[in-house]
């Protein structure tokens, strides 16, 4: 019973932790980018202020926007939030993360993306269509790559449940696995594409024919836009958490831990998220955005990497039979 309460609390804490951390991660990346390009940049807390400001503003809807357009942001946010809350972050013994394994997790992200792509087409503007069509092109390559990456790690750990995968990796001696290295590269590439980051998309651009994510949300404003933005921040944290959980789970607290272990787990997680956000900022200023139609080559190679990873995992002897 005590462990039940503990895991329930862990689950609750996690739900609010990711919600609290998500805008900060985006803020840190933005700040790092600004500093590296010799600008002052907005403070990290600005992202929170922006969200609050957007929520408080009037929402302006296009004349022909349907019920789908109005309700989609909430569902997209909820789907992303639930998905993020199901990835073990600081502790692995969460109350409800048995409800969805990695396959279901990838599908949950897919559901949020499909709803956003549909919402983009609702008003019937050319930009919405551009964004939606490109997003689905990117997703049609990124989603299989993600799936193959998570299946690779699941195969090695002998389970598709994330907490067990993390526990398995912690219990293993530290060694370089070729399949994991390939999977890591592939997942990082996919994470860049899925979060509309350079070189696939530019989160800071508007009025440019190369934009993808921003084109989709162009018609949103006010509280609806706030939901979409918050979901985007959450998705970034989700991918960072997923990479951490699959490849760097060290420091994560097990279920039967003392409070001090939990604090260590929390500290380790926050440090890892900070580091990832900084690394993302450095990466974004050091590379140029690519043309939309080179994205397929970029993601195609991610797909090939992930395929090689799973192939190696299947054929290697270390797989648990």
């Amino acid at each position, binding site marked *: 019973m005590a462990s039940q309460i503990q895991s329930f609390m862990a689950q609750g804490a996690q739900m609010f932790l990711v919600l609290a951390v998500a805008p900060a991660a985006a803020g840190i990346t933005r700040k790092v980018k600004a500093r590296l390009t010799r600008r002052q940049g907005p403070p990290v807390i600005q992202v929170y202020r922006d969200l609050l400001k957007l*929520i*408080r503003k*009037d*929402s*302006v*809807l*296009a*004349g*022909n926007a*349907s019920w*789908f357009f109005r309700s989609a942001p*909430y*569902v997209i*946010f*909820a*789907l992303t*939030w*639930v998905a993020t*809350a199901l990835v073990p972050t600081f502790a692995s013994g969460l109350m409800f993360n*048995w*409800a*969805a394994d990695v*396959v*279901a997790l990838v*599908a949950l992200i*897919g*559901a949020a*993306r*499909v709803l956003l*792509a*549909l919402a983009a*087409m*609702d*008003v*019937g*503007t050319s*930009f*919405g*269509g551009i964004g939606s*069509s490109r997003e*689905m*092109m990117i997703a*049609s390559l990124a*989603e*299989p790559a993600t*799936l*193959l990456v998570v299946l690779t790690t699941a195969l090695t750990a*002998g*389970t*598709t449940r994330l907490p*067990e995968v993390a526990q398995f990796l912690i219990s293993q001696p530290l060694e370089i696995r070729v399949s994991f290295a390939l999977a890591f590269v592939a997942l990082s590439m996919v994470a860049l594409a899925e979060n509309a980051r350079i070189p696939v998309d530019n989160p800071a651009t508007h009025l440019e024919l190369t934009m993808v994510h921003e084109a989709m949300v162009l*018609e949103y404003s006010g*509280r609806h836009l*706030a*939901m979409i933005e918050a979901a985007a921040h959450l998705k970034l944290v989700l991918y960072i958490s997923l990479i951490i959980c699959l490849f760097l789970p060290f420091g994560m607290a097990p279920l039967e831990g003392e409070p001090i272990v939990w604090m260590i787990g929390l500290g380790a997680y926050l440090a890892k998220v900070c580091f990832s956000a900084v690394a993302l900022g450095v990466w974004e200023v050091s590379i140029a955005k690519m043309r*939309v139609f080179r994205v*397929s080559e970029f993601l195609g190679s991610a*797909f090939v990497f992930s395929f090689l990873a799973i*192939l190696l995992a*299947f054929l290697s002897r270390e797989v648990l039979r």
Partner: protein
Amino acid sequence: MMVERPLDILAVALAIYGGAALLSLILPRRLLGIVYPACILAAILACAADLSVLAGQADFKAQLPIGLPSVGLRFRLDGLAAFFGFIVNLGIAASSLYGIGIGKADLSKRIEPFYPAFCAAMNTVLLADDAFGFLFFWELMSLSSWALVVARHEEAECRKAGYVYLIMAAMGTAALLFAFGGMAGAAGGYGFDAIRAHKLTPLISALVLVAALFGTGSKAGIMPLHAWLPLAHPAAPSHVSALMSGVMTKVAVYAIIRIVFDLLADPPWWWSLPFIILGAATAVGGLLYAVQDRDLKRVLAYSTIENIGIIFAGLGLAIAFKATGIVAAAAVAMAAALLHSLNHSWFKSLLFLGAGAVLHATGRRDLDGLGGLIQRMPKTAFFWLIGALSISALPPLNGFVSEWLLFQAVLAGPGFPEPILRFLSPVLGAMLALAAGLAAACFVRAFGTVFLGRPRSKDAAEAHEVPFVQTLAIGLLAVLCILGGLFGGFSAYAIGPLLKTLAGTELTGLLNGPTKLSLIAFDPERSIYDAPTIALFVTLSSITTMLFVHLVSNRRTRRAPAWDCGFPDASPATQYTASSFSQPLRRVYKGVVLGAVESLDMPPPGDLRPGHFSVRFYDYAWRNLYAAPAEALLAVATRFNAFQFLTIRRYLVLMFCTLIALLIVTAVWM
């Protein structure tokens, strides 16, 4: 509910189907609508009978003294037949409910008499317990559906579809004839029990497999035998399309399961190879065409091909696992194939009936002429959205249940002793993952262009919602898609006895999870998916978020013209069309598998004529495997045509030469 004599109830249902077919021959045209309530009644009765057998797992047999001498016409209702009977009759019930809403003007002597006959034929194929009866009813099913395809024979497109379908159906039945002939052997016991007892040499059974795959694959739509589906399924009236695509393809799946897992029994492991390879290729190939096509019903037909590919891949994995003794994984793969058959029949019927509603409301099914129907047909749009999300395998809807099980089966792949299978299973996993991504793109495109945006034509702008019974039929299927998704664990539990007979074991981990409704492939520690919990979480967090936002915000919403980056264009033609939506995908996959030809006619500067851009795309399989041989045959036939108008002397010379040639051959041979 246990029914004492399910076969009797099925006989009553069949009698109703048959009676409706005969009655509709003599009824005046305006009264023909009566066949649909009759079919619903029969379908409900049959569903009840099938369900009771599925729960009880007893076999029921009957024999009629007609048919082949000494064999008779045998019927048998076992778990497998009952499961597919449930799929078939539920699909019939939904389509018939939709059919009630068909206007009096659209009733026709070319449709309504054949509809119940088609329903009856599909039921009897499942019940047949001897080769003769099976082939007879199979052919009856093909012919009655062919009659429905050519119902609008005045359109050239329908005639072509009917022609191609007839050829493919005839070839398929011929292949099945060889398959059963091979299985029965020279002694010729055509009852299924005699076939089961008859042991085949490996060579013969391999030939039987090829023939059976050809026969059932051509009906189900396995590539490259799929060419007739995108022609014939859309050509039929929409409620018949729903039956052909959602249900008849499952009868073909039933046939291959019956042959491979029951009649031949204990297939060797390499039999899985054609299933896995063809299934994976079909899954991805079908979608690549689906994502390009501009006709709503053709998109759905191509998507059926994809789903059949997934089912065949699942069957292939089941064969491989069973043959190598990994029964737990065989059960998972089999459960994936069976549940995907069930789920696909629901959402594909939903989507086809919805497409029928769109066709009825607007008179068109070209994606580029529709749009904005969510405003004019809100109910159809909502239900179609659920169907589209289900078929894209998104949780918590039903398409994801079978997809999830299939991935779990793929993950058991490292257990294979054969290196080829160990290599193939990640390839299959990659192809399935690719198919899942493409399916989402395909249905975002379809729903987005048909129901969202602004109307692209006057027809779409003036659309109206279809009659209540039709939205009811679509809505009930949508409810089934949701329930099937939430209670996937229950469905997997319910088919347990069937899995035991086909794969050797049921899903043993099912009830060991944190809740009784979790879907568990092997054991809860290894993998688990709990749709109700996820659905609850998502619902709760949406509501909480909405409440919170409404608490903080000023709740004001203003309506204004679309922003569109400051340059809104009033013309709906500026929207993305279905063709423009698929352009990035076309560009990615062009040359690999797609036969897309883009032509751009750009006038030089100063020239005032308008520029033109057009995309044509063709089916590789159609061009190379159907059209090219047909042309070659025609060319040869034209050459031989010269022999038709010879003088009698020349004919005599020809006969003389033939005689000499034959004599020489005989002389050399001896």
